[in-house]
């Protein structure tokens, strides 16, 4: 089995600050994802990457940047944190054949 590790688990920042979340996977999956989870709004895709150095925008990419410098890691940057984006950010990776996702434990963002 594999594991997806997200750091940090809790991130507190100031409004307007640039904040970065990191994700590592040892499944050797090609595709990785960042989802944002807000209560009552489900999981919304921010960015995904189908291979090293590839980036694809999701439905919620505005205000975020992403980086996939290695196959095993995928980072997400909030370019200017806003109070209305306090949420849980979930990293995931997927199997090639079916798209089944494996999720990390999440990173909770709080903006003061």
């Amino acid at each position, binding site marked *: 089995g594999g594991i997806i590790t997200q750091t940090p688990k809790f991130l507190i920042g100031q409004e307007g600050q640039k904040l970065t979340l990191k994700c590592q996977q040892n499944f050797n999956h090609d595709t990785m994802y960042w989802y944002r989870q807000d209560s009552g709004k489900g999981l919304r895709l921010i960015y995904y990457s*189908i291979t090293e150095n590839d980036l694809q925008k999701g439905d919620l990419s505005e205000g975020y940047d992403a980086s996939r410098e290695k196959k095993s890691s995928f980072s997400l940057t909030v370019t200017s944190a806003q109070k209305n984006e306090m949420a849980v950010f979930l990293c995931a990776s997927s199997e090639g054949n079916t798209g089944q996702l494996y999720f990390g434990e999440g990173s909770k963002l709080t903006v003061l």
Partner: protein
Amino acid sequence: GDSVTQTEGLVTLTEGLPVMLNCTYQTIYSNPFLFWYVQHLNESPRLLLKSFTDNKRTEHQGFHATLHKSSSSFHLQKSSAQLSDSALYYCALSDNTGGLSGKLTFGEGTQVTVIS
């Protein structure tokens, strides 16, 4: 683009009664993969069921679902709810084709609370 609709946002039911969570989808792809993910409190989502075969029932951990392409549905059912089934349930659609990893589109989720 693809979309997934879960009509119930909140479901409260009594232990021992049947569960049915609705899921319908829209996609241009003729061979979508459908998933149900479950997320317990303070945990991350994990796969419960998946299917890409039309009209074939798939089962896991007492839950079952059948993909019906004719009605674009993938409803989740269980004959008898348990307290431990209290969780957030997501229906999801993958546009995976050609063996490449497809991105998933999630429904808004159904929060299930089972009471004794």
